[in-house]
């Protein structure tokens, strides 16, 4: 085991090799994704695929891990900031940066072992989950939101593990037709969504813990579906009641691996 990973040897005798071999995709390198990139690199992940079309702006500096004021002036790509962060921790890491929307490069996801989705819109989440299911990839979604209530603002969020063959985000009630429709109606008029570094960090840390639990043998309580709800006002993360209700149900949305692989697969040379 590498010297720098010895303090986490409890993760299992082969954990450093497992994490080193794992190909991790992070879609969205903003407030949540930058935390995940940093923590995964600390953990020993050495092969990354990063997707984000944006450059860092002044409004990102309240939360984007690794970004500096100089990056704002230079207009540095968010993927480049994450890559710099990862390579600063592990210079040997392979980091493939895709400066664009993931949908235009979705074929690259096929070589991954897990996809972290750190996206703003429900539509993007839905599409990414569909793509992950098509290639038998576990999908780990994080996100946060802020709503104004009678007593002030309520910070909330979620961590969801959507595993092929198990409950999906529609089963869990997180993705609903009315939300997708409402979002489509407001397309282009949503403006900047409220984000804050500590909520992003809490959600990202929980997601990295779920990932570690899934891939390394540090304890035996493995869960194929995870739905953690975050109350940012009390700083509590708790398993969703919806998951408890749905736990023994079958997913009716992705039926028996019917839509796997490339829809039209012709090998090169044919």
């Amino acid at each position, binding site marked *: 085991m590498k010297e720098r990973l010895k303090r986490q040897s409890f993760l299992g005798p082969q954990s450093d090799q497992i994490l080193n*071999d794992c190909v991790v995709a992070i879609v969205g390198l903003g407030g949540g994704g930058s935390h995940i990139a940093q923590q995964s690199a600390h953990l020993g992940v050495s092969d990354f695929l990063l997707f984000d079309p944006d450059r860092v702006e002044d409004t990102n500096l309240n939360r984007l891990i690794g970004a500096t004021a100089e990056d704002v002036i230079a207009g540095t790509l968010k993927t480049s900031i994450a890559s710099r962060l990862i390579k600063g921790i592990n210079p040997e890491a392979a980091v493939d940066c895709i400066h664009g929307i993931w949908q235009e490069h979705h*074929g690259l996801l096929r070589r991954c072992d897990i996809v972290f989705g750190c996206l703003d819109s429900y539509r993007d989440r839905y599409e990414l989950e569909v793509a992950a299911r098509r290639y*038998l990839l*576990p999908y780990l979604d994080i996100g946060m939101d802020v709503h104004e209530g009678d007593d002030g603002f309520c910070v909330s969020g979620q961590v969801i593990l959507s595993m092929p063959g198990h409950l999906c985000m529609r089963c869990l009630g997180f993705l609903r037709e009315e939300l997708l429709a409402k979002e489509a109606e407001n397309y282009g008029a949503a403006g900047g969504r409220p984000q804050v570094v500590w909520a992003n960090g809490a959600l990202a840390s929980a997601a990295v813990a779920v990932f570690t639990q899934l*891939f390394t043998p540090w304890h035996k309580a*493995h*869960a194929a579906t995870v739905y953690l709800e975050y109350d940012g006002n009390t700083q509590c993360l708790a398993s969703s009641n919806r998951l408890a209700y749905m736990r023994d149900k079958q997913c009716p949305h992705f039926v*028996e691996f019917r839509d796997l692989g490339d829809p039209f697969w012709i*090998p090169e040379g*044919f």
Partner: protein
Amino acid sequence: MMVAFKIPEGLLGRVCEDLNRPHPFAAERVGFLSCRVGALKPSGWVVLAHDFHPVADSDYLRDHSVGAMMGPAAIRKALQVALSSEVGMFHVHIHGHRGKPWFSGVDLHETAKFVPDFWHVRPHLVHGAIVLSLDSAAGLCWHPQSPKPVVFSRFSVVGAPMRAWRGENEREA
């Protein structure tokens, strides 16, 4: 050339449960996994296990020189699945030991004989063979334009926990 193979843990459980059943006269059981495929850049494929098709008891031949010998009906039924479902077919059997399994000489010889039959019905697809052990797996993948099979670079079981075994690319098929 990279070949990554992925199978959901529930499907692998079904395969193991079936293959571990005793057969009336054969020493072991065999079956087929139907698979779909995705292209990997710059070169390679991800093979995605889709369903399991056990060989029926009556489709084994009495041949005590090998653990299990499929009759022509078994191959014919597997060819029918490949044709009607547009899938690649991977022969699967289990060696009852722990650690990294590999194909016997008979396995390699017999597999190399029947795999080209699948290109008659699905010429564009990859087909192959998988050998499981009690705690690991390995596989070979035949591409229609390559005479030699490619060893799986990685065999992943998708579930909780996630499990993966690396292939031994230096091994000669």
